[in-house]
């Protein structure tokens, strides 16, 4: 039958479809312009700009303390790590040594943020491929972390807990107990995640061999984070350029070589275990001391260019500050992980079906405000 149609003189044309900006699987206001032939994808063009708030330009107006709260609104799922990136850059530029206590607390909350982000990703990704239950289970466990944040930082998502020179206030007396409770609770939940989703035969067939990204391509597209590590590219910033208290802990970099959607999924599940182990190593020995060092009320960076990168839940976030010695940066640039990871979507989706595009996108773990800023 098929051969008859292919050999006949019937003309076939590609057609264009808009996926988004309000499609639930794009997790925000991302618009994808798909060129498709039947159900086979021939081209994916991401169209950005729907949630552009010119954060980089606003940073040029703000003082260095005020910049921190804007980074909450970029990759809102790893807001603490974004805050930390800006604070580390400013502290490096001022050559300010923060107390050990600050470093340890920053690392613990950073890893909790990573787990919370991966919990949400796990739930939403399950929902993208058709498993609604995962959504509720992921949010159930994330809720415990949000309570820890709310009690200590005062907010659940946009925490703004870091300031240049330390932390805004000390941790809450309940913080250690709540974190230990969470670690004990979550250790019983990741095996449940595996039972519910990872081993499921439908899920396996949706994921295995879909959206394959080779190691060479991951490097040339500038991929980072779990996306690159799923292709066997070892690029964990925490390992290679460790910051805060990460040099005091031992952990393994989650690495897979298959490069398909399932590999990226497994890397993130593995990362949750590693984050739990980092928290366990630090939570019992938070050093005593001050929660911040005094800085000038008006922070003026020395003239020059400063760069610092950190590993957010999505990959490598770089903060570049060009200072002319005034109280505002002359130029501030964020190298966001989502932007580079989005750029390879066309590469991994071409030739697949629309349903596979949703699965590939889910494992890229895109956060649109991070891409658009």
């Amino acid at each position, binding site marked *: 039958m098929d051969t008859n149609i292919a050999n006949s003189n019937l003309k076939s044309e590609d057609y264009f479809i808009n996926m988004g900006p309000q499609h639930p699987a794009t997790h925000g206001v991302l618009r994808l312009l798909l060129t498709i032939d039947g159900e086979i994808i021939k081209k994916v063009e991401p169209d950005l700009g729907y949630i552009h708030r010119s954060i980089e330009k606003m940073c040029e107006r*703000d003082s260095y303390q005020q910049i921190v709260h804007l980074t909450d609104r970029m990759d809102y799922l790893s807001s603490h790590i974004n805050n930390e990136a800006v604070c580390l850059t400013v502290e490096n530029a001022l050559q300010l040594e923060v107390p050990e206590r600050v470093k340890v607390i920053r690392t613990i909350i950073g890893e909790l943020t990573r787990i919370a982000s991966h919990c949400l990703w796990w739930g939403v990704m399950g929902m993208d491929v058709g498993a609604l239950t995962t959504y509720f289970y992921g949010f159930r466990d994330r809720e415990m972390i949000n309570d820890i944040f709310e009690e200590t930082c005062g907010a659940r998502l946009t925490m*703004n807990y870091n300031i240049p020179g330390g932390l805004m206030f000390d941790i809450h007396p309940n913080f250690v107990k709540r974190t230990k409770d969470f670690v004990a609770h979550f250790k019983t939940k990741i095996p449940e995640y595996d039972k519910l989703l990872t*081993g*499921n035969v439908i899920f396996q067939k949706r994921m295995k061999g879909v959206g394959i990204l080779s190691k060479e391509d991951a490097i040339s597209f500038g991929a980072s984070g779990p996306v690159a590590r799923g292709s066997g590219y070892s690029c964990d910033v925490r390992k290679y350029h460790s910051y805060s208290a990460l040099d005091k802990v031992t952990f393994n970099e989650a690495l897979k070589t298959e490069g398909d959607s399932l590999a990226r999924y497994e890397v993130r599940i593995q990362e949750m275990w590693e984050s739990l182990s980092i928290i366990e190593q630090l939570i019992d020995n938070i050093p005593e001391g001050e929660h911040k060092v005094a800085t000038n009320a008006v922070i003026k960076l020395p003239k020059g260019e400063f760069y610092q990168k950190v590993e957010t839940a999505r990959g490598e976030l770089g903060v570049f500050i060009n200072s002319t010695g005034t109280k505002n940066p002359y130029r501030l640039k964020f190298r966001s992980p989502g932007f580079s990871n989005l750029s390879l979507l066309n590469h991994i989706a071409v030739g697949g079906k629309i349903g596979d595009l949703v699965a590939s996108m889910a494992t890229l773990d895109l956060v649109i405000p991070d891409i658009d800023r």
Partner: protein
Amino acid sequence: MSYFGDIYKGIKTLLTGMSVTGKVFLNNKNNSITQQYPDNRETLKMFNRFRGEVVMPHNEKNEHTCTGCQKCEIACPNGSIEIIWDRQIDPESGKKKKMIDQHIYHLGMCTMCGLCIEACPTDAILWAQNYENSVYDRSALTKVLNQPGSKIMPGVED
């Protein structure tokens, strides 16, 4: 794999997943995180550090501790705080002193970053824990934090 092998594997993974959901279903008293909002308004207490909105506490004599130094206004990233002040004669010393006329707070613009409260040298403004901030008109979100007729507490200096 054989046809029947596929069926067997499919049913097995289905049952494995259902054993997890079944456990949660039967045991939902311990696992439930759902809150019966708004029926639990009386029992729902936010954490002490929760950032609901900025308030200015007054004592029973209708006195606050805001000196009008404007540090919160400078610290605010987006102009949510405006302070209207003038120099009035201080009844104690008889000298002219900077005093606030109105401490205007735009809740609708506030990003809850907390920089104003960190900047305040006299703890004149604090976080309140209310979480139901929706109103019918957005002009109701612009608030004057100092009460009418209030004055500065004696003895408070920057």
